[in-house]
Protein backbone atom coordinates (compact mmCIF):
# COMPACT_ATOMS: atom_id res chain seq x y z
CA UNK A 1 0.00 0.00 0.00
CA UNK A 2 1.35 3.41 -0.96
CA UNK A 3 1.40 6.32 1.43
CA UNK A 4 2.54 9.89 0.84
CA UNK A 5 4.46 11.51 3.65
CA UNK A 6 3.97 15.27 3.34
CA UNK A 7 6.72 17.04 5.18
CA UNK A 8 5.74 20.38 6.68
CA UNK A 9 8.27 22.66 8.28
CA UNK A 10 7.47 25.39 10.75
CA UNK A 11 8.00 28.86 9.31
CA UNK A 12 10.44 30.99 11.26
CA UNK A 13 9.37 34.59 11.80
CA UNK A 14 12.14 37.06 10.94
CA UNK A 15 13.97 38.03 14.10
CA UNK A 16 12.75 34.97 15.99
CA UNK A 17 14.87 32.01 16.97
CA UNK A 18 14.63 28.85 14.90
CA UNK A 19 13.48 25.49 16.23
CA UNK A 20 15.31 24.02 19.21
CA UNK A 21 16.27 20.81 17.49
CA UNK A 22 16.74 21.49 13.77
CA UNK A 23 17.45 18.46 11.60
CA UNK A 24 20.93 18.43 10.07
CA UNK A 25 21.77 17.75 6.45
CA UNK A 26 23.47 14.53 7.56
CA UNK A 27 20.28 13.33 9.23
CA UNK A 28 18.28 13.93 6.06
CA UNK A 29 20.89 12.03 4.04
CA UNK A 30 20.78 9.14 6.50
CA UNK A 31 16.97 9.03 6.38
CA UNK A 32 16.91 9.09 2.59
CA UNK A 33 19.44 6.27 2.50
CA UNK A 34 17.37 4.22 4.97
CA UNK A 35 14.18 4.68 2.90
CA UNK A 36 16.01 3.45 -0.22
CA UNK A 37 17.73 0.56 1.52
CA UNK A 38 14.46 -0.66 3.03
CA UNK A 39 13.13 -1.11 -0.51
CA UNK A 40 10.03 1.02 0.18
CA UNK A 41 10.97 4.14 -1.82
CA UNK A 42 8.54 5.01 -4.63
CA UNK A 43 9.36 8.66 -5.11
CA UNK A 44 10.25 11.75 -3.18
CA UNK A 45 11.54 15.27 -3.58
CA UNK A 46 12.30 18.27 -1.52
CA UNK A 47 10.79 21.50 -2.76
CA UNK A 48 12.58 24.79 -3.40
CA UNK A 49 11.81 27.80 -1.27
CA UNK A 50 8.20 28.94 -1.16
CA UNK A 51 9.19 32.37 -2.56
CA UNK A 52 9.79 30.59 -5.90
CA UNK A 53 6.22 29.25 -6.09
CA UNK A 54 3.74 30.31 -8.79
CA UNK A 55 -0.01 29.63 -8.77
CA UNK A 56 -2.03 28.89 -11.92
CA UNK A 57 -5.83 28.91 -12.08
CA UNK A 58 -8.04 28.53 -15.11
CA UNK A 59 -11.56 29.95 -14.91
CA UNK A 60 -13.81 30.32 -17.96
CA UNK A 61 -10.90 29.45 -20.23
CA UNK A 62 -8.88 32.35 -18.82
CA UNK A 63 -5.50 31.51 -17.41
CA UNK A 64 -4.45 33.49 -14.35
CA UNK A 65 -0.91 33.28 -13.09
CA UNK A 66 0.08 34.76 -9.76
CA UNK A 67 3.17 34.89 -7.63
CA UNK A 68 2.98 32.81 -4.49
CA UNK A 69 1.23 31.55 -2.47
CA UNK A 70 2.99 33.07 0.46
CA UNK A 71 3.03 31.32 3.78
CA UNK A 72 -0.23 32.24 5.40
CA UNK A 73 -0.26 29.26 7.69
CA UNK A 74 2.40 28.49 10.22
CA UNK A 75 3.56 25.36 8.41
CA UNK A 76 4.64 25.06 4.80
CA UNK A 77 5.09 22.00 2.61
CA UNK A 78 8.80 21.44 2.15
CA UNK A 79 8.89 18.06 0.46
CA UNK A 80 7.38 14.59 0.26
CA UNK A 81 8.05 10.90 0.02
CA UNK A 82 5.82 8.21 -1.43
CA UNK A 83 6.57 4.88 0.23
CA UNK A 84 5.14 1.41 -0.30
CA UNK A 85 4.64 -0.43 3.01
CA UNK A 86 2.21 -3.08 4.32
CA UNK A 87 0.01 -0.91 6.58
CA UNK A 88 -0.50 2.39 8.36
CA UNK A 89 1.51 1.40 11.43
CA UNK A 90 4.62 0.91 9.29
CA UNK A 91 3.97 4.19 7.49
CA UNK A 92 3.62 5.99 10.83
CA UNK A 93 6.93 4.51 11.98
CA UNK A 94 8.67 5.90 8.89
CA UNK A 95 6.99 9.27 9.46
CA UNK A 96 8.25 9.34 13.04
CA UNK A 97 11.80 8.54 11.88
CA UNK A 98 11.72 11.38 9.33
CA UNK A 99 13.82 14.37 10.48
CA UNK A 100 10.99 16.63 9.27
CA UNK A 101 8.72 15.43 12.11
CA UNK A 102 10.94 17.13 14.70
CA UNK A 103 11.79 20.70 15.68
CA UNK A 104 8.26 22.07 15.29
CA UNK A 105 7.74 20.40 11.91
CA UNK A 106 5.14 17.76 11.12
CA UNK A 107 4.69 14.86 8.73
CA UNK A 108 1.17 14.20 7.43
CA UNK A 109 0.60 10.61 6.29
CA UNK A 110 -1.96 10.11 3.53
CA UNK A 111 -2.81 6.87 1.75
CA UNK A 112 -2.53 7.10 -2.02
CA UNK A 113 -5.97 6.42 -3.53
CA UNK A 114 -6.32 3.20 -5.48
CA UNK A 115 -8.79 2.94 -8.34
Amino acid at each position, binding site marked *: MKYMLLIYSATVEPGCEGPEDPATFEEWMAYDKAVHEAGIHVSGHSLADLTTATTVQVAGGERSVTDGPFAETREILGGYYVIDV*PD*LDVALDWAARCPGSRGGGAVVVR*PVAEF
Partner: protein
Amino acid sequence: MVAVFREEHGRLLASLAGRFGDLDLAEEVAADAIEAALTRWPVDGVPDRPGAWLLTTARRKAIDRLRRDQAYAARLAALHLEAERATAPAPSLDGELPDERLQLFFTCAHPALAAEDRAALTLRCLAGLTTPEVARAFLVPPATMAQRIVRAKRKIRQARIPFRVPGLDELPERLPGVLQVIYSIFTEGYAASAGPDLQRPALAGEAVRLARILRRLMPAEREVAGLLALMLLVHARRDARTGPHGEPVLLGDQDRARWDRSMIDEGRGLVVAALTGGPPGPYGVQAAIAALHGEADDVASTDWPQVVKLYDVLLGLTPSPVVAVNRAVAVAMRDGAEAGLALLDGLAGEPRLRGHHPYPAARAELLARLGRRGEAAAAFREALDLAGTEPERAFLRHRLADVAPDPPDRV
Protein backbone atom coordinates in the same frame (compact mmCIF):
# COMPACT_ATOMS: atom_id res chain seq x y z
CA MET B 1 -28.47 -9.59 19.73
CA VAL B 2 -29.16 -12.40 22.19
CA ALA B 3 -27.06 -11.95 25.33
CA VAL B 4 -25.48 -15.44 25.14
CA PHE B 5 -23.92 -14.58 21.82
CA ARG B 6 -22.41 -11.25 22.86
CA GLU B 7 -19.17 -12.83 24.05
CA GLU B 8 -19.03 -15.13 20.99
CA HIS B 9 -19.77 -12.19 18.73
CA GLY B 10 -16.64 -10.29 19.78
CA ARG B 11 -14.44 -13.35 19.28
CA LEU B 12 -15.97 -14.17 15.94
CA LEU B 13 -15.68 -10.57 14.74
CA ALA B 14 -12.03 -10.41 15.79
CA SER B 15 -11.18 -13.60 13.86
CA LEU B 16 -13.02 -12.46 10.75
CA ALA B 17 -11.70 -8.88 10.83
CA GLY B 18 -8.13 -10.13 11.16
CA ARG B 19 -8.68 -12.49 8.25
CA PHE B 20 -10.42 -10.09 5.87
CA GLY B 21 -8.90 -6.80 7.03
CA ASP B 22 -12.39 -5.40 6.65
CA LEU B 23 -14.59 -4.68 9.62
CA ASP B 24 -17.77 -4.12 7.60
CA LEU B 25 -17.68 -7.50 5.91
CA ALA B 26 -16.71 -9.14 9.21
CA GLU B 27 -19.66 -7.55 11.02
CA GLU B 28 -22.11 -8.49 8.34
CA VAL B 29 -21.17 -12.16 8.12
CA ALA B 30 -20.77 -12.50 11.90
CA ALA B 31 -24.37 -11.33 12.27
CA ASP B 32 -25.46 -13.75 9.51
CA ALA B 33 -23.72 -16.64 11.23
CA ILE B 34 -25.32 -15.87 14.59
CA GLU B 35 -28.70 -15.60 12.95
CA ALA B 36 -28.13 -19.01 11.35
CA ALA B 37 -27.18 -20.42 14.74
CA LEU B 38 -30.37 -19.07 16.29
CA THR B 39 -32.41 -20.88 13.64
CA ARG B 40 -30.44 -24.11 13.41
CA TRP B 41 -29.23 -24.91 16.91
CA PRO B 42 -32.69 -25.24 18.49
CA VAL B 43 -33.51 -27.81 15.78
CA ASP B 44 -30.19 -29.60 15.18
CA GLY B 45 -28.75 -29.18 18.67
CA VAL B 46 -25.72 -27.11 19.68
CA PRO B 47 -22.61 -28.30 17.77
CA ASP B 48 -19.60 -29.74 19.64
CA ARG B 49 -17.47 -26.72 18.82
CA PRO B 50 -19.86 -23.75 18.62
CA GLY B 51 -17.09 -21.22 17.95
CA ALA B 52 -15.69 -23.19 15.03
CA TRP B 53 -19.20 -23.73 13.65
CA LEU B 54 -19.84 -19.98 13.73
CA LEU B 55 -16.53 -19.19 12.04
CA THR B 56 -17.05 -21.75 9.27
CA THR B 57 -20.58 -20.49 8.67
CA ALA B 58 -19.43 -16.86 8.63
CA ARG B 59 -16.65 -17.61 6.12
CA ARG B 60 -19.13 -19.39 3.86
CA LYS B 61 -21.41 -16.33 4.07
CA ALA B 62 -18.43 -14.13 3.18
CA ILE B 63 -17.68 -16.18 0.06
CA ASP B 64 -21.36 -15.91 -0.97
CA ARG B 65 -21.27 -12.19 -0.52
CA LEU B 66 -18.03 -11.80 -2.49
CA ARG B 67 -19.49 -13.85 -5.35
CA ARG B 68 -22.41 -11.43 -5.50
CA ASP B 69 -20.22 -8.32 -5.42
CA GLN B 70 -17.31 -8.73 -7.82
CA ALA B 71 -15.92 -5.20 -7.52
CA TYR B 72 -15.84 -5.47 -3.77
CA ALA B 73 -14.23 -8.87 -4.05
CA ALA B 74 -11.47 -7.58 -6.32
CA ARG B 75 -10.65 -4.79 -3.91
CA LEU B 76 -10.67 -7.16 -1.01
CA ALA B 77 -8.65 -9.87 -2.68
CA ALA B 78 -5.38 -7.96 -2.44
CA LEU B 79 -5.96 -7.16 1.21
CA HIS B 80 -7.08 -10.66 2.01
CA LEU B 81 -4.07 -12.38 0.44
CA GLU B 82 -1.61 -10.07 2.12
CA ALA B 83 -3.33 -10.40 5.46
CA GLU B 84 -3.38 -14.18 5.24
CA ARG B 85 0.29 -14.21 4.34
CA ALA B 86 1.26 -11.87 7.13
CA THR B 87 -0.76 -13.47 9.91
CA ALA B 88 -1.46 -17.11 9.16
CA PRO B 89 -3.24 -18.07 12.39
CA ALA B 90 -1.85 -21.06 14.24
CA PRO B 91 -4.66 -23.61 14.61
CA SER B 92 -5.03 -24.49 18.26
CA LEU B 93 -4.82 -28.13 19.29
CA ASP B 94 -8.42 -28.62 20.35
CA GLY B 95 -9.72 -26.93 17.21
CA GLU B 96 -11.44 -24.14 19.18
CA LEU B 97 -11.00 -20.60 17.97
CA PRO B 98 -7.90 -18.77 19.09
CA ASP B 99 -8.95 -15.59 20.88
CA GLU B 100 -7.99 -12.78 18.52
CA ARG B 101 -9.87 -10.05 20.33
CA LEU B 102 -6.69 -8.40 21.57
CA GLN B 103 -5.83 -7.16 18.10
CA LEU B 104 -9.35 -5.82 17.73
CA PHE B 105 -8.92 -3.88 21.01
CA PHE B 106 -5.79 -2.25 19.60
CA THR B 107 -7.36 -1.48 16.23
CA CYS B 108 -10.46 0.10 17.79
CA ALA B 109 -8.25 2.24 20.07
CA HIS B 110 -5.77 3.14 17.33
CA PRO B 111 -4.37 6.68 17.79
CA ALA B 112 -5.04 7.41 14.09
CA LEU B 113 -8.79 7.32 14.85
CA ALA B 114 -10.64 10.28 16.37
CA ALA B 115 -10.67 9.95 20.16
CA GLU B 116 -14.48 10.07 20.28
CA ASP B 117 -14.74 7.26 17.74
CA ARG B 118 -12.44 4.87 19.60
CA ALA B 119 -14.86 4.30 22.49
CA ALA B 120 -17.81 3.98 20.10
CA LEU B 121 -16.05 1.33 17.99
CA THR B 122 -14.91 -0.57 21.07
CA LEU B 123 -18.45 -0.69 22.47
CA ARG B 124 -19.79 -1.78 19.14
CA CYS B 125 -17.17 -4.39 18.16
CA LEU B 126 -16.01 -5.76 21.51
CA ALA B 127 -18.95 -5.20 23.85
CA GLY B 128 -21.40 -6.16 21.07
CA LEU B 129 -23.65 -3.11 21.49
CA THR B 130 -25.87 -2.10 18.56
CA THR B 131 -25.39 1.33 16.99
CA PRO B 132 -28.53 2.76 18.70
CA GLU B 133 -27.22 1.45 22.04
CA VAL B 134 -23.83 3.09 21.43
CA ALA B 135 -25.66 6.32 20.47
CA ARG B 136 -27.57 6.21 23.75
CA ALA B 137 -24.32 5.68 25.64
CA PHE B 138 -22.90 8.92 24.24
CA LEU B 139 -26.23 10.81 24.20
CA VAL B 140 -26.10 11.50 20.46
CA PRO B 141 -28.79 10.77 17.85
CA PRO B 142 -28.50 7.26 16.31
CA ALA B 143 -27.94 8.72 12.83
CA THR B 144 -24.98 10.78 14.08
CA MET B 145 -23.47 7.75 15.75
CA ALA B 146 -24.02 5.62 12.64
CA GLN B 147 -22.12 8.21 10.58
CA ARG B 148 -19.26 8.29 13.05
CA ILE B 149 -18.97 4.50 13.05
CA VAL B 150 -19.07 4.37 9.24
CA ARG B 151 -16.37 7.07 9.06
CA ALA B 152 -14.13 5.24 11.52
CA LYS B 153 -14.53 1.90 9.75
CA ARG B 154 -13.80 3.55 6.42
CA LYS B 155 -10.57 4.99 7.76
CA ILE B 156 -9.53 1.57 9.09
CA ARG B 157 -10.12 0.07 5.65
CA GLN B 158 -8.83 2.83 3.40
CA ALA B 159 -5.80 3.92 5.41
CA ARG B 160 -5.25 0.26 6.23
CA ILE B 161 -4.98 0.45 9.99
CA PRO B 162 -3.75 -3.07 10.72
CA PHE B 163 -5.39 -5.71 12.92
CA ARG B 164 -2.38 -6.59 14.99
CA VAL B 165 -1.12 -6.61 18.55
CA PRO B 166 1.74 -4.12 18.92
CA GLY B 167 5.15 -5.58 19.69
CA LEU B 168 6.57 -5.49 23.21
CA ASP B 169 8.59 -2.37 22.36
CA GLU B 170 5.45 -0.53 21.22
CA LEU B 171 3.23 -1.56 24.14
CA PRO B 172 4.21 1.27 26.52
CA GLU B 173 3.04 3.69 23.83
CA ARG B 174 -0.08 1.84 22.71
CA LEU B 175 -1.56 0.10 25.77
CA PRO B 176 -2.48 3.35 27.62
CA GLY B 177 -4.68 4.25 24.64
CA VAL B 178 -6.67 1.00 25.00
CA LEU B 179 -7.00 1.50 28.76
CA GLN B 180 -8.07 5.10 28.24
CA VAL B 181 -10.89 3.98 25.91
CA ILE B 182 -12.24 1.53 28.49
CA TYR B 183 -11.89 4.04 31.32
CA SER B 184 -13.66 6.77 29.32
CA ILE B 185 -16.60 4.39 28.82
CA PHE B 186 -16.59 3.71 32.56
CA THR B 187 -16.50 7.36 33.60
CA GLU B 188 -19.34 8.22 31.23
CA GLY B 189 -21.36 5.50 32.99
CA TYR B 190 -20.16 6.39 36.47
CA ALA B 191 -20.56 10.15 36.20
CA ALA B 192 -22.61 11.05 33.16
CA SER B 193 -21.43 14.33 31.65
CA ALA B 194 -25.00 15.35 30.80
CA GLY B 195 -28.56 14.08 30.83
CA PRO B 196 -31.23 13.24 33.36
CA ASP B 197 -29.30 10.60 35.30
CA LEU B 198 -26.22 10.95 37.46
CA GLN B 199 -24.93 7.50 36.67
CA ARG B 200 -25.69 4.78 34.18
CA PRO B 201 -24.61 1.55 35.87
CA ALA B 202 -25.20 -0.60 32.77
CA LEU B 203 -22.64 1.39 30.78
CA ALA B 204 -20.13 1.27 33.64
CA GLY B 205 -20.83 -2.48 33.77
CA GLU B 206 -19.93 -2.79 30.07
CA ALA B 207 -16.58 -1.14 30.80
CA VAL B 208 -15.94 -3.60 33.62
CA ARG B 209 -16.78 -6.47 31.26
CA LEU B 210 -14.36 -5.14 28.63
CA ALA B 211 -11.60 -4.79 31.24
CA ARG B 212 -12.21 -8.38 32.38
CA ILE B 213 -11.74 -9.60 28.79
CA LEU B 214 -8.56 -7.54 28.45
CA ARG B 215 -7.27 -8.86 31.79
CA ARG B 216 -7.70 -12.46 30.53
CA LEU B 217 -5.90 -11.57 27.30
CA MET B 218 -3.02 -9.69 28.99
CA PRO B 219 -2.60 -11.30 32.43
CA ALA B 220 0.96 -9.98 32.85
CA GLU B 221 0.13 -6.28 32.31
CA ARG B 222 -0.08 -4.66 35.74
CA GLU B 223 -1.93 -1.55 34.55
CA VAL B 224 -4.68 -3.75 33.08
CA ALA B 225 -5.09 -5.25 36.57
CA GLY B 226 -4.98 -1.72 38.01
CA LEU B 227 -7.71 -0.46 35.68
CA LEU B 228 -9.99 -3.42 36.41
CA ALA B 229 -9.34 -3.00 40.16
CA LEU B 230 -10.12 0.73 40.04
CA MET B 231 -13.37 0.21 38.17
CA LEU B 232 -14.51 -2.66 40.44
CA LEU B 233 -13.77 -0.67 43.60
CA VAL B 234 -15.67 2.37 42.33
CA HIS B 235 -18.47 0.38 40.72
CA ALA B 236 -18.96 -1.41 44.07
CA ARG B 237 -20.42 1.85 45.46
CA ARG B 238 -23.00 2.31 42.68
CA ASP B 239 -26.10 1.54 44.81
CA ALA B 240 -24.99 3.89 47.58
CA ARG B 241 -23.96 6.78 45.29
CA THR B 242 -27.47 7.99 44.57
CA GLY B 243 -30.35 8.70 46.93
CA PRO B 244 -34.03 7.76 46.49
CA HIS B 245 -34.60 10.67 44.08
CA GLY B 246 -31.48 10.06 42.01
CA GLU B 247 -29.51 12.73 43.83
CA PRO B 248 -25.78 12.20 44.43
CA VAL B 249 -24.66 11.00 47.85
CA LEU B 250 -21.11 12.03 48.73
CA LEU B 251 -18.59 9.40 49.82
CA GLY B 252 -18.81 10.51 53.46
CA ASP B 253 -22.60 10.16 53.57
CA GLN B 254 -22.92 6.85 51.74
CA ASP B 255 -24.44 3.83 53.49
CA ARG B 256 -21.44 1.54 53.28
CA ALA B 257 -23.59 -1.50 53.99
CA ARG B 258 -24.88 -1.03 50.45
CA TRP B 259 -21.42 -1.32 48.93
CA ASP B 260 -20.85 -4.48 46.92
CA ARG B 261 -18.47 -6.40 49.19
CA SER B 262 -17.55 -9.17 46.74
CA MET B 263 -16.63 -6.57 44.14
CA ILE B 264 -14.48 -4.72 46.68
CA ASP B 265 -12.72 -7.95 47.64
CA GLU B 266 -12.04 -8.78 44.01
CA GLY B 267 -10.74 -5.24 43.44
CA ARG B 268 -8.45 -5.39 46.46
CA GLY B 269 -6.93 -8.63 45.21
CA LEU B 270 -6.23 -7.01 41.85
CA VAL B 271 -4.62 -3.95 43.50
CA VAL B 272 -1.98 -6.29 44.89
CA ALA B 273 -1.30 -7.63 41.38
CA ALA B 274 -1.22 -4.08 40.00
CA LEU B 275 1.34 -2.81 42.53
CA THR B 276 3.64 -5.85 42.68
CA GLY B 277 6.65 -6.49 40.51
CA GLY B 278 7.57 -3.04 39.24
CA PRO B 279 6.98 0.68 39.55
CA PRO B 280 3.31 1.62 40.00
CA GLY B 281 1.20 3.00 37.14
CA PRO B 282 -1.55 5.61 37.41
CA TYR B 283 -4.45 3.13 37.35
CA GLY B 284 -2.82 0.96 40.02
CA VAL B 285 -2.33 3.99 42.30
CA GLN B 286 -5.89 5.22 41.82
CA ALA B 287 -7.11 1.70 42.56
CA ALA B 288 -5.05 1.69 45.77
CA ILE B 289 -6.75 4.94 46.85
CA ALA B 290 -10.16 3.45 46.08
CA ALA B 291 -9.17 0.34 48.07
CA LEU B 292 -8.37 2.46 51.15
CA HIS B 293 -11.92 3.85 51.00
CA GLY B 294 -13.29 0.36 50.45
CA GLU B 295 -11.53 -0.94 53.54
CA ALA B 296 -12.65 1.87 55.90
CA ASP B 297 -15.83 1.63 57.99
CA ASP B 298 -16.43 5.36 57.66
CA VAL B 299 -14.77 8.64 56.69
CA ALA B 300 -13.30 9.21 60.15
CA SER B 301 -11.46 5.90 60.21
CA THR B 302 -10.13 6.23 56.65
CA ASP B 303 -6.34 6.22 56.44
CA TRP B 304 -6.12 9.81 55.11
CA PRO B 305 -2.31 10.16 55.54
CA GLN B 306 -1.92 7.15 53.24
CA VAL B 307 -4.49 8.56 50.81
CA VAL B 308 -2.53 11.83 50.60
CA LYS B 309 0.71 9.90 50.04
CA LEU B 310 -0.86 7.98 47.16
CA TYR B 311 -2.12 11.22 45.62
CA ASP B 312 1.46 12.52 45.81
CA VAL B 313 2.61 9.46 43.84
CA LEU B 314 -0.25 9.94 41.35
CA LEU B 315 0.61 13.61 40.84
CA GLY B 316 4.17 12.55 40.09
CA LEU B 317 2.94 10.09 37.45
CA THR B 318 0.22 12.26 35.90
CA PRO B 319 0.56 15.93 36.83
CA SER B 320 -3.04 17.13 36.53
CA PRO B 321 -4.97 19.89 38.31
CA VAL B 322 -7.95 17.52 38.66
CA VAL B 323 -5.75 15.15 40.68
CA ALA B 324 -4.50 18.16 42.66
CA VAL B 325 -8.13 19.02 43.61
CA ASN B 326 -8.69 15.49 44.92
CA ARG B 327 -5.42 15.63 46.81
CA ALA B 328 -6.43 18.95 48.43
CA VAL B 329 -9.68 17.37 49.65
CA ALA B 330 -7.69 14.49 51.17
CA VAL B 331 -5.34 16.99 52.83
CA ALA B 332 -8.40 18.74 54.29
CA MET B 333 -9.42 15.42 55.87
CA ARG B 334 -5.93 14.86 57.24
CA ASP B 335 -4.97 18.38 58.39
CA GLY B 336 -8.26 20.30 58.52
CA ALA B 337 -10.38 22.36 56.14
CA GLU B 338 -8.10 25.40 56.31
CA ALA B 339 -5.12 23.48 54.89
CA GLY B 340 -7.21 21.95 52.11
CA LEU B 341 -8.71 25.31 51.18
CA ALA B 342 -5.28 26.92 50.91
CA LEU B 343 -4.28 24.24 48.39
CA LEU B 344 -7.51 24.67 46.42
CA ASP B 345 -7.10 28.45 46.30
CA GLY B 346 -3.59 27.90 44.96
CA LEU B 347 -5.17 26.22 41.92
CA ALA B 348 -7.31 29.26 41.05
CA GLY B 349 -6.82 30.42 37.47
CA GLU B 350 -5.70 26.96 36.34
CA PRO B 351 -7.06 26.78 32.77
CA ARG B 352 -7.77 23.06 32.92
CA LEU B 353 -10.11 23.56 35.90
CA ARG B 354 -12.25 26.08 34.07
CA GLY B 355 -15.67 24.51 33.63
CA HIS B 356 -14.82 21.65 36.04
CA HIS B 357 -17.66 21.89 38.58
CA PRO B 358 -16.12 19.63 41.26
CA TYR B 359 -13.52 22.36 41.83
CA PRO B 360 -15.87 25.15 43.03
CA ALA B 361 -18.04 22.47 44.75
CA ALA B 362 -15.02 21.25 46.76
CA ARG B 363 -14.12 24.84 47.69
CA ALA B 364 -17.72 25.47 48.74
CA GLU B 365 -17.78 22.43 51.04
CA LEU B 366 -14.57 23.48 52.79
CA LEU B 367 -15.75 27.11 53.12
CA ALA B 368 -19.00 25.85 54.62
CA ARG B 369 -17.07 23.68 57.06
CA LEU B 370 -15.15 26.81 58.14
CA GLY B 371 -18.40 28.71 58.64
CA ARG B 372 -17.68 31.18 55.79
CA ARG B 373 -21.26 30.93 54.52
CA GLY B 374 -21.32 33.84 52.10
CA GLU B 375 -18.24 32.65 50.23
CA ALA B 376 -19.52 29.05 50.33
CA ALA B 377 -22.80 30.16 48.74
CA ALA B 378 -20.94 31.99 45.96
CA ALA B 379 -18.85 28.89 45.24
CA PHE B 380 -21.93 26.63 45.22
CA ARG B 381 -23.56 29.00 42.72
CA GLU B 382 -20.45 28.80 40.54
CA ALA B 383 -20.61 24.98 40.65
CA LEU B 384 -24.32 25.07 39.90
CA ASP B 385 -23.70 26.97 36.67
CA LEU B 386 -21.24 24.31 35.52
CA ALA B 387 -22.85 21.00 36.58
CA GLY B 388 -24.07 18.89 33.64
CA THR B 389 -26.75 16.58 35.06
CA GLU B 390 -30.02 17.50 36.75
CA PRO B 391 -29.43 15.37 39.90
CA GLU B 392 -26.14 17.19 40.47
CA ARG B 393 -27.79 20.57 40.04
CA ALA B 394 -30.57 19.57 42.47
CA PHE B 395 -27.97 18.48 45.00
CA LEU B 396 -26.02 21.75 44.65
CA ARG B 397 -29.23 23.80 45.01
CA HIS B 398 -29.90 21.88 48.20
CA ARG B 399 -26.41 22.57 49.55
CA LEU B 400 -26.73 26.20 48.55
CA ALA B 401 -29.98 26.47 50.54
CA ASP B 402 -28.12 25.03 53.56
CA VAL B 403 -25.54 27.82 53.58
CA ALA B 404 -27.45 30.76 52.07
CA PRO B 405 -29.92 32.49 54.42
CA ASP B 406 -32.13 33.80 51.59
CA PRO B 407 -33.32 31.88 48.54
CA PRO B 408 -31.08 33.00 45.69
CA ASP B 409 -32.88 34.65 42.80
CA ARG B 410 -30.60 33.18 40.16
CA VAL B 411 -31.68 29.56 40.38
